[in-house]
């Protein structure tokens, strides 16, 4: 049976400029997978661990964060902070017996860049291979 993953992407303003420039149709034409929903933020440094966990609670099979290159963040350390939080969730997922690869941090060049599409494709492929989230979602 084919499985279409539910992937939630949290991207900073600078790495996701492509979405603004091209719009959703343009992105699809570039090969951006339909499975990925983009949430744009002013800076990934603003992301809370709880926001990323909530995405899993709400049924995401995979989650990723796209921020600036670690040493070239528009807000100096925002993407480094986000990477640490993603790391903390990887550890927590492993403790719960869930594949830590279901969450990932990408450091991407700012501006209009094909890597933005590549990261989404990589996650789409990875999560499709891993299969549905072991968290059933929905119960609270």
């Amino acid at each position, binding site marked *: 049976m084919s499985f279409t993953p539910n992937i939630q992407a949290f991207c900073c303003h600078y790495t996701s400029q492509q979405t603004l420039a091209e719009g959703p149709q343009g992105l699809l034409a570039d090969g951006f997978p339909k499975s990925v929903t983009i949430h744009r933020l002013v800076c990934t440094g603003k992301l809370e661990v*709880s926001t990323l*966990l*909530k995405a899993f609670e709400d049924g995401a099979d995979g989650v990723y964060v796209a921020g600036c290159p670690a040493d070239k963040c528009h807000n100096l350390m925002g993407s480094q902070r986000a990477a640490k939080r993603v790391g903390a969730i990887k550890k927590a997922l492993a403790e*719960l017996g869930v594949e830590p690869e279901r969450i990932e941090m990408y450091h991407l060049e700012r501006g209009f860049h094909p890597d933005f599409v590549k990261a989404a494709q990589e996650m789409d492929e990875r999560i499709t291979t891993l299969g549905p989230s072991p*968290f059933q979602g929905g*119960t609270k």
Partner: protein
Amino acid sequence: MIIAERKPLNEIMNMVQDAKRILVLGCRGCVTVCSAGGEREVEILASLIRLGKQKAGQEVSTIEATLVRQCDKEYIDSIDQWDGQYDAIVSMACGVGVNFIANLRPMVKVYPGVNTSSFGGSAEQGVWSEQCAGCGNCILHLTGGLCPVARCAKSLMNGPCGGSVDGRCEIHKEVPCIWQAIHDKLVRIDKADQLAAIAPIRDWSTAGHGGPRKTMRNDLTV
């Protein structure tokens, strides 16, 4: 402050395996400052517990709350507002909080969400180091303000032991030998003669070796 760290999740999930409704209870004191059990950590742990239960295919609901402190009766009293709404409490306060809930609410199932490790301070962002062991008979006036009870691997009263190399402890190479630091400090403040005095054998009964300790202030009791 009291330093603590969240327990491994599998341990916590085991504690709450029979509970369907869980009160995750933080504390605004020390554990908020050391990012182990404040409001933010309560939100994260509650979410992780729900995810763990979802994975196990079990129903769960959580209440998230954070008390001003969990080491005073009047704050513990405020948990009565959730009476009948939870099967168990996971306290993210230090061990004192868990004990206080257990003392004051004998029918409540309360579990520790953190491991309480030491009395310490923030060494740098995200790093805390032990400074005092609460020995109940402070000798910092003799040691230049640096504690050999907590910070010497052997808790020596007449140090150094002779094993330190380049100012590092022979037990933990990454830790400075506190007796070397005490020596340097006393020389610096012109109190090196204190080093010649031999500390007598210590009575450790104040350090908890004589059973649980109690502090009583007659001027404050009612």
